[in-house]
């Protein structure tokens, strides 16, 4: 027994020593370490031929030129195109995220038909033929019932061939209800028309400006064409130009400015008029320009023979430095100093439209800023604000409406834009939630393309409820976004990296710029160009509708309507127009401080945030950050990863609260609270910050997605759930800069 | 740790550090070898009891 055990022990030890002396353990050790260096579950990106393809990024309205780096047929990186008129090599984080969108888990991989309850997320993959015929069948039925106007269409913009194909479809079908994503462009278009009589948009000649005065515009937070604005800001800095930001919160635009004027929220227009007061009173204005090109500076007599007060009277009477200081909370001396510096600068420029421009704002404010520019002669001058007439670059054959269509088109628009109450407005999409519930007539079908209203429009909680009642909701989204998740049919579009499409001129640039988005890779999934789908739907509808769409496919349609532009666009990628000449098409043929026809004028119209002060002692306002995409395109995983831990912590969004206010409310850093507004309530956390004034709660836009994938969704709260639109009495557009709110510790 | 590793440089650091290390290892190795060899020898000579 003992011998056996001892022998066994000896054998064991001997064996171990013997093995250790062979190369086996050493070889094994080496092999194992090599294995750890090449773990099979750690991907090894395949090599391949490197190529670069130029195109345009259409993820946001900025439209940067992009150079896509490919390895084999894989898209590996997106870079800004050097020398491109928008971004000259720069690119933002949304643009950089393209590959994550292209291959992302939230892509809709084929046409889907809802099989579960609405929003439940149960789908059946269907063929494109079935998808098209289902839409056509529904539309056909409504048309047969002579209700074509109950079909609505919601788009990110109304320029460009796909938007105009939709508009064309609805025109020949018989619905006036084409809607566009609300933005400051709505108000800018209106203000341009009122002051210049021109249908179009302004351009800002920032490269030649010497003094930029921004009334709350987040020029470094996505306002205008974001990367273009970044370039412009750096250019201003390099040339020792001054930048002044007027804003209640210390946004990054305010922080980067030479001077931050911390006004009371919503009083920017009063400051603009107060500055006009000083400039007029001290005769610092450009007399030559005002005399030669302006109308309505002095009192005048209108066509009816009525005596009308001039702009001069308007500002001298109401906006003394003392009054302005009272309204805005600024010091009189600062107001006077700013006015003088602005007027004395060689090429000053004032811009407005808050944040990244998603809320249209008041017409009075925009006209006040226009007036300020006009006073210093910065209208239509290099370094100033330019008027870019609508570029009619697409030549469409005139559509023929049949009787049903003509009748449908005569219906009042559901949003009331252009009607008796709001004659100046073209779109009032911000009110979609209310309109769907209590508009003139029920909407029976809604086509949503390139837009995500359930997330993106104010009052999204209400809107979600209202959309649930629409009998047929069709989404053309490439991604399973919040709206697509509620749809009856999802007809996924190619994403921008997979499709050919014209890119209409970019807002804010001093020259019109037409671009062509070109496919850089083959479609990854069974998606289809929305342009093709529209044509196919029209053809399936037959009759007069089909006749308006004579093209076999979208590409031939695009080639035809672009005409001669196509070849040049195809070759160069973009076409730059000329800087427009100074020209006014108003009744007076001059720049009108006060519109002679509509009497629209520069004004400070206080926009009172919704809610009872007693119940909601604080005011909630949204802010924009480049790291979060607030629009129809969601954030990418990389963008969410880049968000500060003072903005997003685990699943909670942090709202900025002034330490003074937090002290009063007994709140400390990181406290979980319920943020309640008249529009909704949500759980958030508190971040103490001196960037906001006492009494204000600031919350980032762009979080709180409920759809998409776990990398993007389920993080924080959607600001739009807590806000509601407040109409500007003149324009009818949404002018809400905030909403009353309360914080309750949980 | 060996001169044939590619990080190896014949500099002062390596000479002092590795010199010290290999010196210590050698002493330990020789000591153990000495004890084992001696024990084997003694065992084969049957000298177990001589120690006590």
């Amino acid at each position: 027994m003992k011998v056996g055990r001892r022998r066994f022990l000896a054998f064991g030890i001997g064996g171990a020593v013997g093995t250790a002396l062979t190369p086996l353990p050493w070889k094994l050790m080496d092999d194992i370490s090599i294995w750890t260096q090449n773990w099979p579950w750690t991907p090894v990106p395949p090599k391949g031929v490197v190529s670069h393809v130029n195109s345009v990024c259409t993820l946001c309205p900025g439209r940067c030129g992009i150079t896509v780096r490919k390895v084999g047929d894989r898209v590996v990186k997106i870079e800004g195109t050097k020398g491109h008129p928008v971004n000259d090599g720069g690119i933002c984080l949304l643009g950089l995220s393209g590959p994550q969108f292209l291959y992302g888990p939230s892509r809709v991989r084929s046409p889907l038909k809802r099989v579960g309850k609405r929003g439940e997320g149960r789908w059946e993959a269907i063929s494109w033929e079935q998808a098209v015929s289902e839409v056509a069948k529904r539309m056909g039925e409504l048309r047969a019932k002579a209700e074509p106007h109950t079909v609505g269409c919601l788009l990110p913009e109304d320029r460009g061939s796909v938007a105009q194909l939709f508009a064309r479809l609805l025109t020949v079908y018989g619905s006036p209800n084409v809607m566009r994503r609300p933005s400051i462009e709505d108000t800018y278009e209106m203000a341009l028309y009122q002051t210049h009589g021109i249908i179009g948009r302004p351009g800002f000649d920032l490269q030649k400006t010497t003094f930029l005065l921004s009334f709350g515009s987040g020029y470094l937070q996505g306002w205008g064409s974001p990367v273009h604005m970044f370039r412009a800001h750096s250019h201003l800095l390099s040339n020792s130009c001054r930048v002044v930001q007027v804003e209640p919160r210390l946004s990054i635009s305010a922080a980067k400015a030479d001077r931050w004027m911390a006004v009371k929220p919503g009083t920017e227009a009063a400051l603009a008029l107060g500055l006009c007061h000083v400039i007029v009173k001290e005769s610092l204005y450009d007399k030559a320009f005002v005399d030669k090109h302006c109308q309505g500076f002095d009192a005048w007599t209108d066509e009816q023979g009525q005596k009308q007060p001039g702009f001069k009277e308007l500002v001298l009477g109401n906006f003394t430095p003392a009054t302005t200081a009272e309204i805005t909370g600024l010091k009189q001396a600062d107001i006077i100093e700013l006015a003088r510096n602005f007027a004395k600068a060689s090429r000053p420029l004032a811009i407005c439209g808050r944040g990244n421009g998603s809320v249209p704002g008041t017409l009075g404010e925009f006209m006040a800023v226009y007036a300020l520019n006009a006073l210093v002669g910065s209208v239509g001058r290099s370094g100033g604000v330019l008027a870019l007439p609508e570029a009619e670059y697409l030549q469409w054959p005139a559509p023929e409406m049949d009787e049903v269509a003509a009748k449908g088109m005569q219906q009042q628009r559901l949003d009331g834009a252009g009607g008796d109450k709001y004659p100046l407005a073209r779109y009032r999409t911000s009110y979609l939630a209310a309109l769907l519930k209590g508009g003139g007539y029920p909407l029976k079908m809604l086509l949503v393309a390139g837009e995500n209203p359930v997330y993106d429009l104010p009052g999204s909680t209400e809107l979600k409820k209202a959309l649930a009642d629409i009998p047929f909701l069709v989404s053309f989204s490439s991604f399973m976004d919040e709206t697509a998740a509620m749809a009856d049919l999802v007809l996924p579009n190619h994403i921008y990296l997979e499709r050919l499409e014209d890119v209409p001129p970019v807002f804010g640039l001093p020259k019109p710029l037409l671009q062509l988005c070109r496919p850089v890779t083959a479609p990854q999934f069974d998606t289809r160009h929305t342009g093709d789908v529209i044509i196919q739907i029209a053809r399936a509808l037959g009759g007069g509708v089909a006749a308006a769409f004579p093209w076999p496919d979208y590409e031939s349609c695009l080639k035809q309507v672009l005409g001669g532009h196509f070849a040049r666009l195809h070759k160069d990628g973009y076409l730059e127009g000329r800087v427009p000449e100074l020209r006014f098409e108003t009744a007076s043929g001059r720049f009108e401080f006060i519109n002679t026809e509509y009497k629209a004028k520069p004004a400070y119209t206080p926009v009172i945030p919704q809610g009872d002060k007693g119940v909601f002692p604080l005011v909630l306002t949204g802010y924009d950050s480049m790291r979060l995409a607030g629009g129809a395109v969601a954030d990418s995983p990389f963008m969410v990863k880049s968000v500060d831990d003072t903005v997003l912590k685990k699943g909670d969004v942090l709202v900025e609260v002034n330490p003074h206010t937090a002290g009063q409310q007994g709140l400390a850093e990181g406290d979980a609270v319920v943020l309640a507004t008249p529009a909704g309530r949500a759980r958030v956390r508190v971040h103490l910050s001196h960037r906001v004034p006492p009494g204000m709660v600031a919350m980032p836009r762009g979080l709180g997605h409920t759809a998409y994938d776990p990398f993007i969704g389920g993080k924080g709260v959607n600001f739009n759930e807590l806000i509601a639109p407040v109409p500007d009495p003149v324009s009818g557009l949404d002018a809400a800069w905030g909403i009353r709110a309360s914080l309750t510790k949980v | 740790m060996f001169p044939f590793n590619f990080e190896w440089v014949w500099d002062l650091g390596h000479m002092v550090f590795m010199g010290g290390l290999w010196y210590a290892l050698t002493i330990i190795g020789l000591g153990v070898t000495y004890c084992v060899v001696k024990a084997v020898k003694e065992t084969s000579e049957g000298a177990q009891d001589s120690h006590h």
Partner: protein
Amino acid sequence: MIDSALIPKGVKRCPTWQFALAVALASGVLLWGVYAMLLCWIKGLNQTNMNNAYGFALWIWADLAVIALGGGAFFTGLLRYVFGKDELKHLINYAVLIGFICYSSAQLILAIDVGQPLRAWFIFWHANVHSMLTEVAFCLSAYFGVLCIEYLPLILENRQIDKVPFWHNLSHNLHHIMAVFAATGAFLSFFHQGSLGGVSGVLFGRPFSFREGVLVWPWTFFLFTWSAAACGPCFTIAITKMTEAIAGKKLVKDNVIQLLAKIAGWMLATYIVAKIIDTIYWATVTAPSKGMNLMDFYSNNAFYGIWILVLEIGICGILPAAILITPAGRKNPKLLTTAAVLGAVGVCVNRWVMVLQTLAVPVLPFESWTLYLPSWQEVATTILPVAYGVILVLISYRYLPVFPQEPELNPIEQ
């Protein structure tokens, strides 16, 4: 008892069932630790609460602490074999065993701590001789070999093993030249204990732990060696006293303990003087040259308040040193044990601040303090070696003549 053939002659041991129960209890804790260890290996270090600010945390502290505490082995060996303090032969076995447990534990913890344990041997193969950690790795491994050699004769003295002529002879031979091993061990220990101090002392990006020094060695190098030599024996005494308390009998004669306590006391006293000088120089010269005040390192949170410095230097430094160097103090059994425990705690606190507080203090002015609490997996894997140590002590005490004076102090009545 079924294992009575294995129990050394002339000593009394508890019944087998008691022994088995104790081993089983410790094994339960051990298994918990092993489970946590496997989680760390299989799922990765996301199982811990470490992060990019705390690349070093509980484990590295535990490493530094056990190696300092295990310093009793090399220092006692040095005193016994090289400086000829012969009385210490009655304690050396236990000192070696404690050292063996500490060092094997340190290596196990390191194997869990590194992100790629399967290629951890690169530290040897691709050694960077300028890194303090390389020096630690080499000397620590080599010294662990020495500890094995020192522990081996004790195993061979087991009643049954000793019957085999070869083992008997080998044991005898090893004893015979043990001075050579002890001297080599002391040499290696000097360097790796020092290098562990160097690990934080060389971090010139971390003003809390950075120290000037001589040649390539920062002052912490010498302070760590010295403190290990001072506090290691304290730990040996403390554990011996604990063992005696649990065994319910005296195992080592007082004169042996007193000698070691006296030496440890003087080591601790001289160490603490050096440490105070180092602290004053650091607080008034080194840190201000980097733009930092002493209180920048000790404010902002209660966890790393100035109390920790008072604890380390005052309560766990000056106080035990004062007790141990005064004959009246160390002759009082309660005070002696208290001093030994305080000394051991002091070195642990020192290692804690040098690892954890180094990383907690913000260096970039716009960063803030980062605090850390270990995850249960970290705690379990840190307790694992304690359970393993308990088991090894239980087995060794039962079957090996760890305490040569035990039969004499506790004669068995026939």
